[in-house]
């Protein structure tokens, strides 16, 4: 599953860059540009700064990529083969969060003041978006019989023959909350303050080059893919609706899910990236306080039974 995850994530990144360019009246890079970038970066020199602690600096990149890869593979395997275990949805989310945190830790261990600023910004922003994200996922599992199993959530939708987001108001609100948290967790404008290019010169990524940068970019792209995939399958499991009309085998199921995640990725990653400016920390936190309020509304609705 690992090569599939890598290929699909990089393709998602390529599509995102191409669409972003087209929306700006540019031609844009070819769709497989991220692959070219990976290959080129692997051949470049790896510099470990003198003021860094080399063990954390290097291992953070490898671990970040590994965690992201693992999280994405679990999600894909679940949908493809149906193998699942209890608590795997929490595991997937944990792996994605740990990926972001590891990227920041690696950056801050480099000893660069810009990376230190990026680290502090990310930690502050983490409070803003992680809690609503987790709340919405917990509400989803609460609605689907209190099992923390990813497959249970999917099969519930398949049994109902309806999308989870369309089934009850609290689920609709949870879907909205989840989608609004995706830009911050992936790190795109308007919430890419921890890697702001013009302000802090790429923040945590500033001292990385060569293979380390390749691994970090891979981790970031995989996070983007997995968050959109989760967003789609948890709330808008399209095969559930399609199989009422057409019989689906595992291959077409996964195909529909990937195509659907591309639409989710477009709406939550590419579109905000193109049409808005970067938010400052204060404004981003205010925005996420509103999302907190929204998720608490969803909790209230769930408790009531809606």
């Amino acid at each position: 599953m690992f090569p599939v995850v890598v290929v699909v994530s990089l393709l998602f990144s390529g599509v995102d860059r191409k669409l972003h360019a087209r929306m700006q009246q540019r031609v844009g890079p070819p769709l497989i540009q991220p692959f070219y970038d990976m290959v080129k970066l692997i051949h470049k020199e790896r510099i470990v700064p003198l003021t860094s602690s080399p063990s954390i600096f290097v291992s953070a990149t490898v671990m970040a990529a590994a965690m992201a890869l693992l999280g994405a593979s679990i999600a894909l395997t679940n949908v493809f083969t149906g193998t699942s275990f209890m608590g795997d949805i929490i595991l997937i989310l944990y792996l994605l969060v740990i990926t972001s945190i590891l990227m920041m830790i690696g950056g801050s261990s480099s000893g660069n003041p810009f990376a230190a600023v990026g680290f502090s910004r990310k930690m502050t922003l983490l409070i803003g978006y992680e809690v609503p994200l987790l709340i919405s996922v917990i509400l989803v599992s609460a609605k689907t019989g209190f099992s923390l199993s990813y497959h249970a959530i999917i099969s519930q939708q398949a049994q109902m023959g309806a999308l989870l987001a369309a089934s009850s108001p609290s689920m609709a609100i949870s879907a909205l909350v989840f989608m609004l948290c995706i830009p911050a967790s992936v790190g795109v404008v308007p919430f890419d303050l921890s890697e702001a290019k013009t302000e802090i010169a790429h923040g945590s990524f500033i001292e990385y080059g060569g293979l380390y940068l390749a691994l970090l970019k891979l981790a970031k792209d995989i996070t983007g893919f997995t968050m959109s995939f989760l967003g789609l399958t948890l709330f808008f499991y399209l095969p559930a609706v399609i199989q009422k009309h057409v019989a689906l085998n595992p291959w077409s199921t996964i195909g529909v899910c990937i195509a659907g995640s591309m639409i989710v990725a477009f709406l939550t990653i590419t579109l905000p990236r193109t049409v808005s400016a970067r938010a400052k920390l204060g404004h981003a936190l205010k925005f996420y306080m509103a999302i907190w309020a929204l998720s608490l509304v969803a909790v209230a609705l769930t408790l009531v039974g809606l």
Partner: protein
Amino acid sequence: MGEGAIDKTRDLKYEYSRLILPIGPVHPALKEPVHFKVTVKGEEIQDVALSLSHAHRGIEALAETRNIVQNMYLVERICGICSHTHTTCFVQAVEEIKGLQAPERALYLRTLIFELERIHSHLLWAGVMAYEMGFDTLFMYTWTAREKVLDLFEETTGNRVHHAMNIIGGVRWDLTPDMIQRTSRVVEDIEKACTFIWKSFQSRTADKRLTGVGLLSTDDARSLCVVGPTARASGLTLDIRRDDPYAAYRDLKDSFSVALDNGADCRARLEVRMKELQESVNLVRAILDQLPGGDIKPADSQVRLMRVPVGEAFSRVEAPRGELTYYVLTDGKEGLQRLKVRTPSLANFAGLKNMLVGGEIADIPVVLASIDPCMSCTNRVAAVDTETGKETLIDFNDIRRRPA
């Protein structure tokens, strides 16, 4: 890289209460190299130290080894964005020493290219401002609009940036009626694009980055002697085109008004530049309407006109970034004894500390971009005072008495 080097870093003492961010000379927020040492605590800026001259090219020294016509080309290359303003200022100084008056039509054409350059410079600035805010799409859009102006430059003068339009006593290229039509059409497109750009800057995320950021009060602006849109956004009415008219601005006094705003923050500077874009469009239309007939070149050749007697002149123009002043001292042998250029960006840098202290790190690129710094313009003269630590007042007499 042996044991000694690693031991040195182990001895570093870190001061954890403050962080010193080195902005530049290489930084994505800067178009050109300059160095700011910004001391921050958390996200709040406490102090800013400026160090210039990373792009020092020794132009004023070079000017003393070249003749006047060569110097015209030299000063053009001080800056790519405002190249015509530099040549205009220089040529005006030389014409003043010689007592030469360029023909009417030549003055109008000089002004036309001047205003078109202001349009392209402000469009470039709008793009850079959007980029510093993270608003990539608007950056791409403004620069697409700017391409139309650059194409116009290429069709009129032969080049997109360094136009070589000015010659001593006149201009080089004339406008055919065909080109006049085309210019008015391009200027209409630019007007529409500017309305769209202005609306995009009103969007919520962009507005939050601009309002209340980088405040420079009127008194500070006056005492620090900032010029151009930076000063006009803090309520000071300074515009050389109106206060000390040159080229065709005397005749065109009624065709434009000075753009003012009292906000004193980055949004005010944006508003002033957007208004100036509209004023420039109006001016271009007025010039095309009132273009007089006649010659554009002087009767004599450049080689003969180069023989300028010994004399000095001080000329100033309103470049897109503010007041540009030239002091020219000729040596009577077709060359220069002294050339002194004071660009507007050098004056505007003085206001940066007031604007930045008390703000956030996120405001640094936005404030830097709002004064529209042109480091290539600024870095022809080394700022020696900071090295020696001495404060010297350089006045007009010192410049004259400086040995050749």
